[in-house]
């Protein structure tokens, strides 16, 4: 789960990581009110769950009260990479001496918690990695050991921070970010830029926080933070119904049991010249309700011209899936052709149910996929 900048900063404040003074506005009236008493210059920052808002004009400096109204109206409602802006953060302006990149990451390759820092703050770390890799310091921290003084020392040497007061501020930030990562089940906490102001204060100017989906439920802090704003309505419905769903641009709707098989199904559609409309994993359960919900979600997509079921029964029982299809046909108005591949546990019973409805089935994945593709071709 991605958090908004303002949510990340609320967590920072809780973990004693300094952030600029700021307020959230959830509509333009609120924003204008906050602007009316905020000391200029201040900064207006669109709150969207994607990067690149700066380039898109979603971050603006307001130099005088007079400018505020125009700037705020330009930002509210703006579309940034498909995300509509309906929240802004209004923050004090800071006099910046230096910008630093700092993050902690659950690193699946090294299997450690990786601290990443660079003197080139404000730039995307991937860009720095390409253009100036030696500007980046990566330190793998073993979660059994934790963050230690020599890690700090390496960071300070890399960033050439020698001032004692700055070191102490920085140590506290490193330590608190590390605590955040481990206590809040974060996959990533990134501050870019972390700024040193002209008055020698270190402040987190931005926040990017990604919470481990497996950890979200364990942490009270996130109860008020849960949002699906980075998901499409279909993805939200799917999630709520225990389905994994990702929308694609094609026209063959897929309902598959198992994520690997679902990907392989999409790939095979493409291989035979077709275009998958989605990734959808109904999971290992045999609840017919899941099939109905899966069909519902796929039907919403007007591009879809055919629905392909690819079921390899293991834990999932073929007869349960067949019953689900039967129910769906009853409850929903399905005009699309259904191509059904059924094999594995209780295959015979499942096939019988479908044949009784006049539906054909196959045991071959390849046959089913080819047939779906050929139907589109017609």
């Amino acid at each position, binding site marked *: 789960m991605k958090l908004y900048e303002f949510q990340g900063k609320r967590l920072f404040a809780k973990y004693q990581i300094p952030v600029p003074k700021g307020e959230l506005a959830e509509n333009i009236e609120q924003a204008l009110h906050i602007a009316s008493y905020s000391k200029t210059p201040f900064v207006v920052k669109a709150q969207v769950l994607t990067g690149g808002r700066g380039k898109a004009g979603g971050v603006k400096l307001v130099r005088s009260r007079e400018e505020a109204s125009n700037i705020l109206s330009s930002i509210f409602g703006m579309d940034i990479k498909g995300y509509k802006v309906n929240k802004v953060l209004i923050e004090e302006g800071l006099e910046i001496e230096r910008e630093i990149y700092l993050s902690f990451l659950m690193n699946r390759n090294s299997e450690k*918690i990786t601290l990443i820092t660079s003197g080139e703050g404000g730039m995307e770390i991937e860009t720095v990695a390409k253009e100036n890799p030696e500007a980046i310091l990566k330190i793998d921290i073993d979660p059994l050991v934790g963050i230690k003084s020599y890690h700090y020392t390496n960071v300070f040497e890399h960033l050439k921070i020698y001032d004692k007061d700055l070191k102490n501020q920085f140590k506290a930030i490193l330590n608190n970010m590390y605590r955040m990562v481990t206590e809040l089940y974060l996959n990533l906490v990134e501050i870019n830029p972390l700024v040193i102001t002209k008055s020698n204060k270190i402040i987190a100017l931005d926040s990017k926080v990604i919470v481990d989906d497996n950890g979200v439920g364990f942490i009270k802090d996130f109860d008020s933070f849960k949002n699906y704003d980075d998901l499409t309505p279909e993805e939200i419905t799917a999630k709520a119904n225990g389905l994994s769903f990702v929308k694609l641009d094609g026209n063959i709707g897929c309902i598959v049991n198992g*994520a690997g098989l679902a990907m*392989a199904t999409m790939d095979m559609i493409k291989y035979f010249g077709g275009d998958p409309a989605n*990734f959808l994993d109904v999971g290992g359960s045999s609840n017919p309700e899941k099939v109905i919900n899966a069909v519902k979600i796929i039907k919403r997509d007007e591009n879809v011209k055919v629905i392909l079921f690819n079921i390899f029964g293991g834990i999932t029982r073929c007869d349960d899936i067949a019953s689900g299809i039967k129910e769906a046909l009853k409850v929903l108005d399905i005009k699309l052709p259904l191509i059904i591949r059924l094999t594995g546990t209780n295959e015979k019973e499942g096939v019988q149910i479908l044949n009784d409805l006049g539906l054909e089935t196959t045991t071959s994945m390849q046959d089913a996929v080819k047939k779906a593709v050929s139907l589109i071709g017609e």
Partner: protein
Amino acid sequence: MSILLNKNTRVIVQGITGRDGSFHTKMMKSYGTKIVGGVTPGKGNETVEGIPVYNTISELKKDHGVDASVIFVPPKFSVDAIWEAVEENIKLIIVITEGVPVNDMLKIKNYIKGKDITLIGPNCPGLITPEEAKVGIMPGNIFKKGNVGVISRSGTLTYEVVYSLTNAGFGQSTVVGIGGDPIIGSRFIDLLKLFKDDDETEAMVLIGEIGGSDEAIATEYIKKEFNKPVVTFIAGKTAPKGKRMGHAGAIVSGQEETAQAKIKFLKDNNIPVAELPQEIPDILKKII
């Protein structure tokens, strides 16, 4: 031979009294797996499918020797269940549970490094040595004893591949589902090392997918040290970047994590990659 598991392996089930735990205990037992006991705190003295239940592994070990544990405990309690198995020094631990926090897995993974413990999963279907024993949730009937080892990051896709193998006459030595999470107990390379020394295994099938670098690490290892024929399949060529495809670990975070990049790296190192899962037996026939 085979790796890790055979009909003499003494297996316990953590979370045996739960819905999934009890169902699969029945299935494993009927497949021939030697299940010696189960663990559910507070349910000691009960039985499931005739198998005695204990409150802790420590209690269980007073009555039974244990070689492996399979964990069906729900996410909230799964972390302690894994730690319990680790601290009780069980040599083979298979975690079926989906939803174990990455954070905790990271600690556990670092803890068992250098210890004589093999952890499989979490979020995996388990492993099976056909016609001997299975530990997990795989449908036993599609497997057949033979000489092909299989390692897979997926569940049903594994069944699809194994089904093709069996139909084409290729039995399996051991099939391991390593799980779809970003941090898993055993990666391709860890198990390849075991298959390398297994006399019964004559060829390998690896089923990979988008996300992470495990396939690349395995490629390097195969090139340098693995001396048996290998066929691979990589799922997710049509997966969009940045989207999680069901498995927590199936997400493309960088160019080298795409299916295309992995396939290219494999081919560049002369490891055959099947275009379709069903092609795997054909390729095997050619290279064995």
